């Protein structure tokens, strides 16, 4: 339903419709790709920085991700999700691949990571300034319980597996699993995601 019409953009990144642009990217339209870049490079880079931390590495991963969008645009299926989410999913997975492979050689200090992975109030405040969508995200995050918010932040922004989150928060594995799901469902309803 939503997929065929340029409805409100799930990423909140604005018009024109990204699905439409990606269709053109899939056919080799470099101008359309540039438009996609202009729209999504900010969130892609921001998310990767959040997970990877190191700016130089983040830039590398962002380049890989954006190039992957160009390369595999034909594989994007609007029936299965929004274009922005497709791109963010690629970005998130690549970022996680990077930190998980890096953590083999360089053990991250889990404690300090735990302290910084949860967006601090002022970090969220910065994000709020970034857009009205961010404001809504913050409000919705605020409506979660502490465990829900912390586990979602650690998993998504911190790039930790839920087993790691369970260790970091000293909360049972099964509890983390359900808290994350319950929290995301609450966020979904709060943000009015209609997929």
């Amino acid at each position: 339903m939503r997929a065929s019409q340029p409805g409100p953009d799930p990423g909140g990144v604005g018009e024109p419709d990204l699905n439409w642009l990606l269709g053109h990217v899939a056919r080799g339209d470099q101008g359309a790709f540039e438009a996609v870049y202009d729209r999504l490079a900010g969130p892609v880079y921001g998310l990767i920085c959040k997970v990877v931390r190191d700016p130089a590495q983040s830039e590398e991963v962002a380049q890989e991700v954006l190039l992957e969008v160009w390369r595999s645009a034909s594989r994007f299926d609007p029936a299965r999700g929004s274009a922005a989410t497709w791109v963010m999913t690629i970005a998130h997975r690549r970022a996680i691949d990077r930190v998980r492979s890096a953590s083999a050689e360089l053990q991250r200090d889990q404690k300090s990571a735990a302290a910084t992975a949860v967006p601090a109030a002022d970090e969220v405040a910065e994000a709020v300034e970034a857009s009205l969508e961010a404001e809504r995200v913050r409000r919705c995050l605020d409506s979660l319980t502490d465990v829900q918010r912390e586990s979602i932040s650690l998993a998504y922004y911190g790039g930790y597996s839920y087993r790691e989150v369970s260790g970091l928060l000293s909360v049972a594995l099964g509890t983390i699993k359900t808290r994350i799901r319950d929290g995301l469902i609450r966020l979904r309803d709060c943000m009015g995601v209609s997929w």
Partner: protein
Amino acid sequence: MKLLRHDLHTLTGVYALDAIEGSERDRFERHLHRCQPCGNEVRGLRETAGRLAVAVAGVPPPQLKERVLAAAARTRQLPPLAADRPQSRAERLQSGTEPLPPGTERPPPGTERPPPTAGRTWLPRLAAAFGAAGLAAAIVLGFALSSTQRQLDSARAQDKAISAVLTAPGARILTARSSVGGTGTVIVAVRQQKLIFTATGLPPLSAAKVYQLWLMGPPRIRSAGLLPPPAQGRTPPLLAAGLRAGDQVGVTVEPAGGTSQPTTTPILVMPVR
């Protein structure tokens, strides 16, 4: 067994956040193939996660864009996944899956797909329609050469409305330099009470700020909308209605989302005579 099912179903959340690894992940993905409600839930939760990304949007280093675009230009794209039928060799050649052997030619024109920019077909018509409004056409066609033209493409209704203003009898073009650099151009159709605003070279703003267009009349000041973010230094056309004779057109810098009345000194004001 029932418990196991339930257990699997609650993994939708951690799966949507890529927070599940290894064999557990594989097992859940197999389950997803069979469990439609799980698939639907994962989709919604992934969209939700995508919005968490938007909340932490950053400013990529400026050189990244050039590098990515250059890399794209020399990177072959994947063909679509063949849905029901095997691709013909011609299609493979065309989609670039298969390299052209030396000395062979591209498939004959009849077998080619429509060009990627089918959405542009209105342009020649638009250009033809603007014999009189040459400058206006030049402005619009100028956008056609940059990626922002696609924004026009994607909003056909707006295209129509914009062409209507451009071709309106008595439509006039005004330009003025802004106090912060760059030039604004307004095409006004007073009788239709409409105007189109575009700009070039306005300094980029942080995500927290936005350029807002105002109709500043003697009775009161009305918002005419937020200027779309520029692409390649060009601000895509903004169509506004409700113009009255005697109005001045102004632009201010406002907090993201805009305001109901200007809160800063206009960077540009043009009287509409």
